[in-house]
């Protein structure tokens, strides 16, 4: 079964590429039983979104992608 350590790896990876179905399910199941990782996944998503909100961001709005 997926543990927090590997779960955070998938949370990070899903911001870079599409996860496999098996990975998606494993992450979803883990998140459903682990409040700490639910906080973590929201924070990773936030850190990913801040790119174009940071005062020193060089990211162009049109480069934003939806995940």
């Amino acid at each position: 079964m997926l543990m927090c350590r590997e779960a955070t790896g998938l949370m990070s990876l899903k911001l870079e590429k599409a996860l496999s179905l098996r990975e998606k399910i494993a992450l979803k199941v883990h998140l459903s039983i682990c409040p700490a990782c639910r906080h973590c996944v929201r924070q990773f998503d936030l850190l990913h979104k801040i790119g174009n909100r940071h005062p020193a961001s060089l990211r162009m709005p049109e480069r934003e992608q939806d995940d």
Partner: protein
Amino acid sequence: MTLTATLAAAHFTQLRPRLVAFARLQLRDATAAEDAVQETLLTAFEKSATFEGRSEFETWVFGILKYKILDQLRQQRRQGTWQPLDQNLDDDTLDRLFQSDGHWQNAARPSHWGEPEQVLENQRFWQVFDACMIALPDSIARVFTLRELMGLSTADICKETGITETNCWVILHRARLRLRECLDHGWLN
């Protein structure tokens, strides 16, 4: 000096420290950072009269800096002065944050941050964020900056830095874990 040019000059003065801070974060070399910002400001100043809105102007100036930084990185690589990324991160992030069975260490367990929009509007969040970025090890900070602040894809980061995409993913995972932890400690407490 026209009114537009005067306004532009004032904007440059305000922008400059932020541009330098950003360039240093990425280039890790004070002289190279100054050069990149200097070239950016020269380019921007020549064309600044065509801008009206301030945020539009800032986005544009940062856009120029982005290309100057990438130029500098390429130049450093050609001249052999580029600091290669340390691929064998002798880094204990994962062992420090997780128990041997894969659960979070008690002290490292993430807590609730509140609504994302409110978090991003909080000045203190950004102060701690910047402090946390500076605390990151060089290789991790450079990859995270290229990815999240400059918006490069991991494929492009491989091209620019010569690391593998898998390595890039590993580094980003550590960057996110460390930033999250640092923000949790520095911002909430």
